[in-house]
């Protein structure tokens, strides 16, 4: 039976050195490379019988433990490569049936990949998450917002029955103000940080149930940063974090990531 080629990442051929000893997707084989001109693919071989389309589909849909384990493997492998080379990280389970087929794809996309390498060389991807304590922020808004303060005054003059409904309305207003304030503050931080980076993108946020964190995620963004500016960027994040801590905010940077968010190109 033949073999399949699992592609982890593409690396500029001129940067390639001897590949470190890394274990492949099946937990047995080793990683190796295939070169097509300026692009070198980092791959591992898989037994075509054990890893055909039906098997993989079944695993991905029905065996979450397997998926979790292989997802970690894929990530850790690409991360290890990104410490050594400029890498274009591929999507999980990008597989070729022959060396020719892989080489053809590399050749077809060679010039676009070279452009991406130019963009990524010497730079790192970092992630920023901003969390906030909704309750704390709500209290601040209730106190400091003149519109809300005035409304509160007006309501206190009403009869008890009317007060109940008016207070409910006021709660809604505070909720809306809260969301707006969260976005305003996060955006201000994001815009300020963007001055230190090459590129910055806003992502969607995870809900608390997904993160397992008590605080609400209000912002999730990624940045492509020149290596020499990373420390300054992180210092800036830290100083925002310390400055805003007392008002219920928390900033968390993570990285360096393989440049997942800045490597895509049109095929």
């Amino acid at each position, binding site marked *: 039976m033949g073999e399949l080629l699992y592609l982890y990442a593409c690396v500029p051929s001129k940067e390639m050195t001897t590949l470190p000893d890394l274990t492949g997707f099946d937990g047995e084989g080793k990683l190796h490379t295939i070169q097509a001109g300026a692009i070198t693919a980092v791959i591992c071989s898989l037994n075509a019988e054990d890893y055909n389309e039906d098997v993989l589909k079944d695993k991905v849909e029905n065996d979450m433990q397997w998926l979790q384990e292989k997802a970690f493997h894929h990530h850790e492998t690409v991360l290890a490569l990104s410490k050594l080379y400029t890498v274009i990280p591929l999507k*999980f*389970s990008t597989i070729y049936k022959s060396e020719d087929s892989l080489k053809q794809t590399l050749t077809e996309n060679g010039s676009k990949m070279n452009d991406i390498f130019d963009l990524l060389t010497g730079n790192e991807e970092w992630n920023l998450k901003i969390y906030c304590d909704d309750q704390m922020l709500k209290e601040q808004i209730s106190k400091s917002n003149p519109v809300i303060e005035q409304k509160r005054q007006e309501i206190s003059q009403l009869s008890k029955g009317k007060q109940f409904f008016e207070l409910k309305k006021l709660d809604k207003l505070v909720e809306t103000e809260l969301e707006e304030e969260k976005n305003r503050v996060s955006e201000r931080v994001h815009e300020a940080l963007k001055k230190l980076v090459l590129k910055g993108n806003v*992502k969607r946020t995870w809900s608390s149930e997904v993160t397992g964190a008590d605080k609400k995620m209000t912002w999730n963004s990624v940045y492509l940063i020149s290596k020499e500016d990373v420390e300054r960027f992180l210092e800036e994040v830290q100083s925002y974090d310390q400055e805003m801590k007392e008002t219920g905010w928390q900033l968390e940077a993570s990285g360096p990531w393989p440049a997942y968010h800045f490597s895509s190109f049109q095929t």
Partner: protein
Amino acid sequence: MSLRDDLENKEIALIDILDVILDKGVAIKADLIISIAGIDLVYLDLRLLVASVESLVQAQAEGKTVTSAQFDMQKEALIDATGQSEKRND
């Protein structure tokens, strides 16, 4: 130690890893690409897996069995929860 070194060794959440490798990794022409439905759902399943193993162990310890109704309730709660994140510009 620099801030960078500090952060480099920090543990990363599974959801962030799934997000990048399943959703953000570069997609190029391949002979075999296993597409995966929304990562929220994948993550949900993983959380359920962990949760169900935990409650099973707990139930066994207490001499109880987990009813499928309880399981469905957990699942619904999680679906509601993950359906809420809407901000998406990337």
